């Protein structure tokens, strides 16, 4: 199937999101689509698959102009879409999830469960995943959920599969599996549109790349004819130097120490220290338990085993409000779900954990609050017209900056960042790295959980590797490399 989109326009209200996009997808190719957050990548794909309707332009499929009224039509025509936001039903089983709205039925209209199981098993085998079909999807890790989504798309026997940041929740091992699948699909003549902010992946798996900026196509090039820097330049519209800014760490006293931390059935016997001014990277496979450790540390999951010390003092972190008082900040992996009040203006989001500091006589001092917020917006270069803009109207990268601003506002001693750059474009990524450096320069200790190995290697002063709920090893900046981390993460031994 050959698809060509020409001069696509789309506006949401007065917000012009696409202003003349062109893109061509050949059959059997893996076509990368890149661009900054908010460039319009997802919107373009939603238009292709009938979730949104275009305002202007044409979509030609095998030489014929076509418009789909809804995603189901597109799917029946052979175009499947793995969405950026996971579309799982947490309370339904994996099997039920796979077949929503396409259950095979008997002539009496009853669902044929056996048939469903057979199809599902076959599909899972191809993908080499082993998620029990009767498991509730909500009990699956984000990565497993992503695999369910992928399986769902593959089951449709599509000729074109759009993958919108499929790897954001996957670790390298799963990504490898995904790539194997992509390669075999390609052999069968299936075309893939691959959207990602991870440069390495693009250069590993894709044949051609289209770059978008501000709702327009910059250009399309074969992968061999371009480079990291070239792509970045096209995306951002200017030259970006090194991806990871230089770090000159000067670690001070230990500010956070954890001894024998554990929670039944989730993780156990976790030891580590974070010193003022250093970045501790935390790596591990999907579902290894990194997020759980951080949540416990922040008082989010109640009772725990073991001891936590802040500034050498033993503390008992019962709830987040206590953690905040102790000087801990937590940027969670789920920015929209846990980081922001999306309906709140930027101002109220940033001020939320710091309300106390500008309250007098029980009243919020609005002028002080405004100054405080403006200062942080400026310092983090949040791109917005006003601090009154609602958080939901910001691009992903800018939303992430608001979350970080909110925590910088409390003057933290320890900042925990869980997947700080997930779904964030290269430009914004670099700014976040720079911020991390600034913070450590001021003596903040940073714990950075990340599934993106280049980021872990590029930014950490020390790397902790988590395997099945415990720390499998610790590597210094100079000894850490991809191979060692992966060995530890998969249960192997590393000497040194």
């Amino acid at each position, binding site marked *: 199937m050959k698809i060509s989109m020409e001069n696509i326009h789309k506006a949401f209200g007065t917000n012009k999101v696409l202003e003349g996009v062109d893109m061509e997808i050949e059959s059997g190719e893996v076509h990368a689509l890149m661009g900054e957050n908010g460039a319009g990548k997802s919107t373009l794909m939603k238009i292709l698959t009938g*979730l949104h309707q275009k305002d202007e332009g044409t979509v030609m499929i095998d030489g014929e102009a076509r418009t789909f009224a*809804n*995603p*189901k*039509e597109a*799917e029946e025509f052979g175009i499947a879409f793995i*969405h950026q*936001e996971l*579309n*799982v*039903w*947490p*309370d*339904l089983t994996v099997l*039920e999830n796979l077949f*929503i*709205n396409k*259950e095979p*039925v008997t002539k009496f*209209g*009853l*669902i044929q469960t056996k048939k469903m199981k057979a199809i599902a098993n076959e599909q899972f085998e191809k993908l080499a995943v082993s998620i*029990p079909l009767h*498991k509730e999807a909500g*009990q699956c890790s984000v990565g497993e959920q992503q695999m369910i989504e992928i399986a769902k798309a593959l089951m449709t026997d599509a000729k074109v599969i759009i993958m919108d940041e499929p790897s954001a929740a996957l670790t390298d091992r799963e990504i490898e599996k995904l790539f194997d699948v992509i390669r075999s699909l390609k052999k069968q003549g299936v075309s893939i549109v691959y959207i990602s902010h991870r440069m390495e992946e693009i250069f590993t798996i894709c044949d051609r790349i289209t770059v978008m900026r501000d709702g327009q196509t910059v250009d399309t090039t074969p992968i061999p004819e371009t480079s990291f820097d070239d792509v970045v330049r096209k995306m951002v519209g200017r030259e970006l130097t090194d991806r990871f800014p230089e770090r000159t760490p000067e670690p001070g006293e230990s500010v956070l120490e954890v001894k024998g931390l554990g929670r039944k*059935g989730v993780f156990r016997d976790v030891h580590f220290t974070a010193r003022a001014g250093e970045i501790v990277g935390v790596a591990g496979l999907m579902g290894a338990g990194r997020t759980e450790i951080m949540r416990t540390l922040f008082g989010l999951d109640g009772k725990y085993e073991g001891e936590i010390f802040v500034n050498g003092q033993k503390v008992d972190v019962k709830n987040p409000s206590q953690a905040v008082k102790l000087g801990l900040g937590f940027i969670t992996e789920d920015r929209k779900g846990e980081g922001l009040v999306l309906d709140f203006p930027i101002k109220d989001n940033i001020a939320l954990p710091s309300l106390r500091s500008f309250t007098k006589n029980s009243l919020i001092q609005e002028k002080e609050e405004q100054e405080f917020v403006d200062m942080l917006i400026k310092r983090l270069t949040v791109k917005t017209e006003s601090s009154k803009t609602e958080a939901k109207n910001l691009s992903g990268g800018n939303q992430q900056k608001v979350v970080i601003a909110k925590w910088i506002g409390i003057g933290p001693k320890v900042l925990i960042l869980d997947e700080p750059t997930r779904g964030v474009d290269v430009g914004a990524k670099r700014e976040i790295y720079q911020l991390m450096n600034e913070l450590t320069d001021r003596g903040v200790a940073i714990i950075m959980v990340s599934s993106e190995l280049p980021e872990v290697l590029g930014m950490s002063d020390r790397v902790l590797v988590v395997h*099945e*709920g415990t720390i499998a090893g610790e590597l210094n900046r100079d000894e850490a490399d991809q191979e060692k981390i992966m060995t530890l993460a998969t249960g192997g031994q590393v000497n040194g």
Partner: protein
Amino acid sequence: MDSAIKGAKQVGNITQKLGPFVGLLALIIVVSIFNSSFLDPLNLLNLFRQVAINALIAYGMTFVILTGGIDLSVGSVLALSSALMAGMMVSGLDPILSIIIGCLLGAVMGAVNGLLVTKGKMAPFIATLATMTMFRGLTLVYTDGNPITGLGDSYAFQLFGRGYFLGIPVPAITMFLAFAVLWVILHKTPFGRKTYAIGGNEKAALISGINVSRVKVMVYSLAGLLSALAGAILVSRLDSAQPTAGEAYELDAIAAVVLGGTSLSGGRGLIVGTLIGALIIGTLNNGLNLLGVSSFFQMVVKGVVIIIAVLIDRKKAA
């Protein structure tokens, strides 16, 4: 480690499903220890008949709640449709035909709710709050506040609410039959699956091409239909249509659904739970009467039992 967690979770799932049933059993044991006449066959038959009306309404409520909605208007739909049925009977229409037409009218009232929620984009709580007032007002206008009586003495009509078939009260049979049909619809058909899907993640349901509006309208219509059916039983039982019938019935129905373990936020629950929930409420009413608890104190006990039941359920889920 992983299999241990999985094991624990499965046990959790089973006890969660059994939870309401165990609660019902415990209640029955307690009541019959204090008053053995509870287990008298006649009392049990009565109990089923008493439960039927709430159970039927609660079935419909289960579907609505599974989609993440709520229907406060069920009691008013019951009243309006039973007034209309009675009106038809008085005007000489065949009683059974009147009941059938009345049930369809109930479905239409439900569809109004569904349209307000989908096309009108109103919060279900508000839409059905408004129609609750509106349908009640229409009932009063139609009946002029008076009960409608003189429904004739068709045997079939009398049987419908008061009779026995094979020794079982007809309303109880209706309740069990409706259960069977609705169980199949909910668990074995794509429509049922869609009901769950909408409540579990409406956006995803839309993206999957489910016609969310249509399913919702159908679900609210079903709730209306079942309320009207419950109304027909009530009309037969009272041999008249009461303009005030069904007041506050939504609360008992919602209580039955929730006691049965269905989540108010949608997407999770079982209709068998609802049946058990309705039986719990019925047993409580019946049992407290047998034990001679004053009607005022019964309310206190009912409130406390709901709290305890839900708390235990929460504990188990955690």
